[in-house]
């Protein structure tokens, strides 16, 4: 287990370094990197515009920019946001708890709904209920997450419910299929034939078989939730990391965008690794 954890830690570190480099490279080579909204401000003097251009020019070499960024990051300095004129570290410290709370609530709502619907649809085997749950999840899957967030703004419902529905729509189908496969296994068919209770079958036979895979899907859904925080926070007016990323994107704030990408990569990788390690522990315990 220790070896597995160390291997995962090494993978996280490598992916993180490459992820940051990828983000910096993509931003650097994106068309329009050289232009800045501030340069169009008629109140700025020619010298100020020249200074802004020089500041951009210093960021032109991706490797130099990234090396400088990493060495500063090791010291805990993530630079200063150009648009918000505040240290990035301060901004993240302020907004990360908001996003984590939103994600936690959203994931709990999404997972609970998905598990409830998947279990009842698999166990009850009522065609109408099966169709209704599948159609509901399918419908939310076909609505852009930004529209869903807007709908929750109009009905004045909390943003985490929108996030929960987004997670539910993505997770439900996989969990439903996994449970379906587990219920078709010979030992579970036998257990049902012997008249074992549905709850006992679920807890003693189905979940131990499909637990690791269910956890893997749950791990992936963290990344989905993280992606959905951008429209949910931006449109519901929640001051979290997603809203900050949106503001940074509109303001073309390079240092803030790279730091946010690294942060988001860390959260995704940690969630995936945790689900992987838990799944492994689950399988080992079963064996």
């Amino acid at each position: 287990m220790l070896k597995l954890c160390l291997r995962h830690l090494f993978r996280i570190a490598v992916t993180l370094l490459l992820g940051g480099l990828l983000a910096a490279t993509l931003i650097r080579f994106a068309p329009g990197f050289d232009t800045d909204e501030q340069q169009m401000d008629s109140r700025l003097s020619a010298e100020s515009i020249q200074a802004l251009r020089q500041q951009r020019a210093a960021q032109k070499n991706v490797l130099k920019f990234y090396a400088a960024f990493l060495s500063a990051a090791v010291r805990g300095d993530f630079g200063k946001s150009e648009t918000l004129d505040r240290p990035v570290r301060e901004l993240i410290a302020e907004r990360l708890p908001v996003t984590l709370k939103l994600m936690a609530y959203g994931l709990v709502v999404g997972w609970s709904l998905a598990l409830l619907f998947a279990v009842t649809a698999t166990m009850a085997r009522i065609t109408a209920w099966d169709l209704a749950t599948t159609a509901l999840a399918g419908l939310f899957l076909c609505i852009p997450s930004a529209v869903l967030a807007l709908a929750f703004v109009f009905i004045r419902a909390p943003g985490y419910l929108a996030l929960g529905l987004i997670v539910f729509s993505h997770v439900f189908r996989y969990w439903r299929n996994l449970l379906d496969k587990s219920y078709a296994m010979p030992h579970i068919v036998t257990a049902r034939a012997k008249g074992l209770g549905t709850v006992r079958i679920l807890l003693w036979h189905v979940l131990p078989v499909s637990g690791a895979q269910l956890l893997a899907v749950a791990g992936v859904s963290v990344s989905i939730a993280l992606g959905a925080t951008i429209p949910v926070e931006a449109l519901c007016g929640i001051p979290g990391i997603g809203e900050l990323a949106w503001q940074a994107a509109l303001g073309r704030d390079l240092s803030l965008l790279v730091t946010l990408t690294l942060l988001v990569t860390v959260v995704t990788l940690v969630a995936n690794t945790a689900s992987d390690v838990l799944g492994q522990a689950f399988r080992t315990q079963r064996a």
Partner: protein
Amino acid sequence: MKRIRQFACVLLLVVTVASLGASVFAPANYATQFRDELPNAAPSRSHWLGTDDLGRDRFSRVLYGTRVSLLLAPAAALLSTLLAALIGALAGYLGGTWEKIAMTGADLFLSLPWLFLLLMVRAMLPLNVSAFTSVTVTFFLLGLLGWAASARVVCSGAKAIRNSDFVLLARASGVSRARLLLRHVLPNLKPVLLAQFWISIPIFILSEANLGILGLGVAEPLPSWGSLLRELESYANFSNEYWRLVPLVLLVITVTSFQLILSRDEVSA
């Protein structure tokens, strides 16, 4: 279920034909402003879905916007599938270090939430970008950044083909690596690639819509589903004007139709 899929095919066909014939069916150009009438006009004989904030015919904009999204999302899906085919097939066929490098790259792309990556790069477009450039770059980015998940599937498919008997026989007969890849591996990956292509289209449609609502999609005056849905931000002020929801309804119908048709394609793949 077969009937529902057939119905979905018909719906998709109708939407596609209507959007392709936008220049014939639309009563006006998407950018024409009717200044003699009030903006945000209610539906009438001359404007079936009323007009928008700038006095442009909403029905025409919906038709043209549908055309933009329905033509460019498959183009982006084609690009991402081609990239996935190239990277995934080579990684799966060559195996070893090549596979590890390619799959680490795919993992890297997958570990960055899709919308974050897209938002980041899309935000770097020049400020004075033309509508045509913005639409091209938006969908090009979707295609360029969306290859990773498909490449993983293609890679595992290529690995299975590499270990199959007919490839072993071809190799034993002295067939070159390039010929093996082009004549034996890639043609057998066609069902997987087709499935990945169809799966990508609704994903890209939804991604463009999300970007559009956030103000980072296609630039004005060119309409797309994303830019049309931006109108919904002020829907609270016009909640009794249901005709404003037409772009959303059309998008949901189209994406649902794709999902319904796909459920069969995925099985057959």
